[in-house]
């Protein structure tokens, strides 16, 4: 099946005229090959490599270079990045901003990461924040939030959310939620749930109010993941179980209902999987070990078939019109 054969099919059904078919055919032959995303990826990786390499390099040669020189260089880079971004940015708008200057996003990202490096360096060398670590974390967080909204940058937003979480002593990056957080400490669970719910709410509000709607995904993904995992760990290991159960189930129900908007089915999946885990855990702990062993096979077989049935028909269950599809 080639372009030509599709065009022939379309002309046979009289959807397009032969002239239009010829136009499309010429277009297909003469269209340029865009290497836009290849170049962007190289640029992006280049920034990652450069900042990692430069970080290690500076660390290795700290004795020979001299602190002032390094700080000055990093500060210059940071300042230039922010200046460039500001110079080339478009005015603020509550919607997604399509900037024709393709470099700005990457420059801002570079600026944000060098700013973090700069701050860390100052703290490490001159101890400017003393032991007020909270202050050291909240400053970049605020700056990144401002940048994210002013320059419409999702990367800066995710860095800001990360900073906010680490202000509370949490790690929020999706792959490290479980590995890097010490949830054996009950004190962390409540802040984690609170922050996660807050972020989810922030995402919800930005979507409902049409204020930076495209940020909602980031907020909800990071916040929802954190809150659900924290609620589950709370349920598994701490009291009062009933509280954690209702928080967890409530969050899952919220995510499943959100699939109504069909913004992202990721949340449907999150809600279903976390909800399934929580329900299964509660059922089995209440049944006791003997009954659980006997019923296990039947429970898992039929419940997973049930979940599959739900996922195959979730549009019908949630009353979503069939046209909405992502």
């Amino acid at each position, binding site marked *: 099946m080639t372009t030509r054969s*599709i065009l022939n*099919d*379309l002309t046979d059904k009289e*959807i*397009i005229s032969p002239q239009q078919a010829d136009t*499309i055919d010429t277009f297909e032959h003469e269209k*340029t*090959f*865009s*290497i*836009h995303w*290849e170049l962007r*990826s*190289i*640029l992006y*990786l*280049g920034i990652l*490599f*450069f*900042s*990692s*390499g430069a*970080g*290690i*390099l*500076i660390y*290795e040669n700290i004795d020979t270079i001299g602190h002032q020189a390094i700080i000055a260089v990093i500060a210059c880079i940071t300042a230039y990045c922010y200046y460039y971004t500001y110079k080339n940015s478009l005015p603020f708008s509550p919607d997604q901003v399509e900037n024709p200057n*393709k*470099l700005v996003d990457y420059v801002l990202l570079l600026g*944000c990461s060098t700013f*973090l*490096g700069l*701050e*860390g*360096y100052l703290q*490490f060398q001159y101890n400017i924040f003393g032991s007020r670590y909270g202050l050291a*974390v909240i400053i970049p967080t605020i700056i990144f939030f401002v940048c994210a909204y002013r320059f419409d940058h*999702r*990367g800066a937003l995710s*860095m800001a*959310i*990360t900073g906010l979480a680490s202000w509370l002593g949490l790690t929020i*990056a999706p792959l490290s939620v479980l590995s890097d957080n010490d949830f054996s400490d009950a004190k962390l669970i409540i802040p984690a749930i609170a922050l996660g719910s807050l972020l989810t709410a922030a995402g919800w509000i930005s979507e409902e109010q049409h204020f930076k709607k495209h940020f909602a995904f*980031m907020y909800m*993904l*990071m916040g929802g993941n954190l809150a659900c995992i924290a609620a589950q760990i709370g349920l598994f290991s701490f009291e009062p179980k009933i509280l954690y159960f209702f928080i967890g189930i409530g969050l899952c129900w919220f995510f499943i209902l959100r699939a109504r908007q069909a913004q*992202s*089915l990721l949340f*449907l*999946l999150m809600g*279903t999987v976390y909800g399934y885990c929580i329900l299964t855990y509660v059922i089995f702990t209440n049944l006791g070990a003997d009954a659980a062993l006997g019923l296990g*096979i039947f429970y*898992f*077989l039929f419940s*997973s*078939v049930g979940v*599959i049935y739900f*996922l*195959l028909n979730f549009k019908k269950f949630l009353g979503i019109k069939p046209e909405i*599809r992502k």
Partner: protein
Amino acid sequence: MKKAYNQTWIDNLHIQQQAAEWKSKNLLTPAQEEQVKEHFPEKFYRPGLFVKIGLFCFAVVACSFFIGFLSLFWVDTHSDTGFSVLSLIACGCFIFVLEFLIRDRKLFHSGVDNALLYAAVAAAMVPMFMLFNHAPLWAYCLAALAIIIPATLRYADLLGPIAIFGLVFTLLTDLMMKFALGKALLPFAIMVLSVCIYILVRKSRDIYYRECRQILEVLSLVTFYLGGNYLVVREANAIISGLNVSIAPQIAFAPLFYFFTLAIPVAYIVSGLKKPDRMLLIVGLLAFAFSIHTYFHYFSILTVSQGLTLAGALMIAGAVALIKYLHTPKHGISDEQDRKNNLADLQALIAAEKLGVTPHQPGLEFGGGTFGGGGAGEVY
């Protein structure tokens, strides 16, 4: 082999996608696109990616507990024969459900059917391992191929070509390793086989197997490069010969492999741009990065950090220069943003993972991926 999914719908799906692309370029009016959808309908159930993942996971759970469920009624699960019969029965059930769901629920690579297919293939292979304990490796490969090739031809599953490719190369390596001459010629054999597979799959024009074909193309491009890569050949040669030394010895035909290491990526990139073929280009870029890694592995003049910094700087400079250069399209290559950035969220997440360090752990917290694995990884 009769195809499991409705061929007409797959054709229509392709036509619809093409029409949507033309519409986004303003070559078709929205009304015309609607007409296309009307005249070329498809009724597949194709959920979003994340629903697919969920369906797949729960289907895997269901399949494994189904076997447990069956074994409740089966007395003789401890002997090899008993278990083999059990898994054959399970395999039959899986295929039955799979066919039923495809026909009735109109699934089309929707997670459940993938999981059922894998479960059925795995169940079909169990007796082979149970009943023939000490067969040689090539016999297992052949038997597995005998199951997987028909399954792939029927269902065009994406894991199928990967498995077939792996098995064919295992088979080749296993047979070559039996002779001294075979060991020496192994890299060339791998390259020749890759070329054969590439030419063969390029011949297929069937839209039903389009994605399988693309996977096989990429894989054969990669193995062709790796078969000629100096680093891979030299290290693998040391392992095959059973040498336990820190530095692998020099290999025969070294200049030839130097040449391959440099020429293959360049050839990939150039022909990828000329054809134009995006996969060729991306594989070429990745291969090029690996070639640089190969060079620095043996002629190391820089430390890791210096290498990273330099590579990063060069990548930034090169990419910026090309972006500026391609501001107006040249030689049929442009820097137009013609596809939507589906990866904006992903990029932001990577930023959170890699850059979102807390300031009270300076310096060493950096240092993400290694130098070699670079290139244009996230494009697809």
